[in-house]
């Protein structure tokens, strides 16, 4: 059953992505000022939003684990954080590429990119913490607490860095400027596509966690005998 869900979501994501790629590269016109490269925004922004959704889900999962002590919640927290981290990395890379083309430099310490980098470091810390704890129950509990702290820090990080720097171009979709309405649609659809992709990856990772837990417990049984 779960296999079918994974395949189903995967297929939906693939179809949507294919449609979007077609739209992004073949249908939509070049931007008046930026030219070709602006198309990267259809991945750059949805990746960030997906990563944020993953962070929120991870926080909820962590809180649920602390309340119920059910390992499913812990598995969800780690799966969703890993996937979110990947999407955040994609956001950083696409942002960097875009900056290189438009401004000529690989990295600018502007507010959004810096916040994304700091958040990436925060959640990378979560994964490192998990790596350092072998005992599954302690690992789940400690990393859940850390996740809550990390999520509480995210808005503070974003606001503080925003006040610190103001170089990022005005938000394309929520700022001024006139946008071809087709772009809104494509961006939204790509967000859905990326969210579907994220779900598929999370489900696969969840399965991995379950299998790992079974192996761990079998190993302990074997040692005990």
């Amino acid at each position, binding site marked *: 059953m779960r296999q079918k869900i994974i395949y189903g979501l995967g297929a939906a994501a693939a179809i949507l992505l294919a449609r979007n790629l077609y739209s992004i590269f073949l249908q939509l016109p070049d931007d008046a000022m930026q030219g070709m490269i602006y198309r990267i925004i259809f991945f750059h922004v949805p990746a960030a939003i997906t990563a944020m959704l993953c962070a929120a889900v991870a926080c909820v999962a962590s809180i649920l684990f602390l309340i119920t002590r059910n390992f499913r919640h812990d598995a969800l927290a780690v799966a969703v954080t890993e996937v979110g981290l990947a999407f955040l990395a994609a956001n950083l890379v696409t942002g960097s590429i875009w900056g290189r083309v438009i401004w000529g430099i690989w990295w600018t310490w502007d507010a959004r990119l810096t916040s994304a980098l700091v958040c990436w470091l925060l959640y990378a810390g979560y994964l490192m913490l998990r790596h350092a704890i072998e005992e*599954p129950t302690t690992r789940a509990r400690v990393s859940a607490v850390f996740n809550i702290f990390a999520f509480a820090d995210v808005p503070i990080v974003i606001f503080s860095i925003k006040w610190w720097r103001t170089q990022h171009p005005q938000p394309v979709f929520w700022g001024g400027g006139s946008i071809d309405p087709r772009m809104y649609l494509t961006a939204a659809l790509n967000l859905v596509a990326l969210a579907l992709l994220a779900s598929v990856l999370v489900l696969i990772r969840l399965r991995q966690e379950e299998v790992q837990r079974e192996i*761990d417990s079998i190993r302990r049984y074997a040692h*005990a005998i």
Partner: protein
Amino acid sequence: MRAVAAEGVWKFYGDYPALRDVGIEAEPGACLALIGRNGAGKTTLLRILGGFSKAGRGQVRIFGADPRETETRRQVGWIGHGISVYDELSAIENLTLFARLYNLSEPRRAALEWLSQTGLERVQNGLVREFSRGMRQRLAVARAFLHKPAVLLLDEPFTALDDRAIAVLQRLLREALAEGRTIVVSTHQLREALELATHVALLNRGKIAFRGPRTPEMLSDPGWVYAHYGEA
């Protein structure tokens, strides 16, 4: 009301069950000896009773309340593997610290009393770091008894004690039992524990293999329980 009661306790490390459907109990004034091989789960069970750890499933009650509740913790004394006193502080500083944490009305007086009970009054100002092993262990005993707990949980307390410390501990435990307090002691040293015990429970690979009052046979042949209920 039972002083210590555990029912249907399971404890998991990951998916591995360290304790499986464990149930024990002790009435006030009883001394329960918890025996079993290494890795059987004695320390795990004791730590759950002491509130250091939560049971995955099942109920644990000290005088009908959760071991984690503040009032309950006030009634429990603990001796674990470590001595749980600070090397950098003196004997009396350590005991007054704990006396204050347990809200005793006259911390310093209580500290001095227990220092003399354990034969440490002459070294009260010495730093624990400079104590001999036996002295450190006696201080640990003083710390556990300081707040006159109604329940004492001891994890292999006789291991590596010197003779003087064993004598002190046994005297204090006998007095505690005479006062109607409850003791749960896990042990390898069968003889010392069985002398004090009123009840015995055998843990085998996380399960209770035997539970019952201590009999004269057990006292004369400490290996009796293992022979009849345990695995070699």
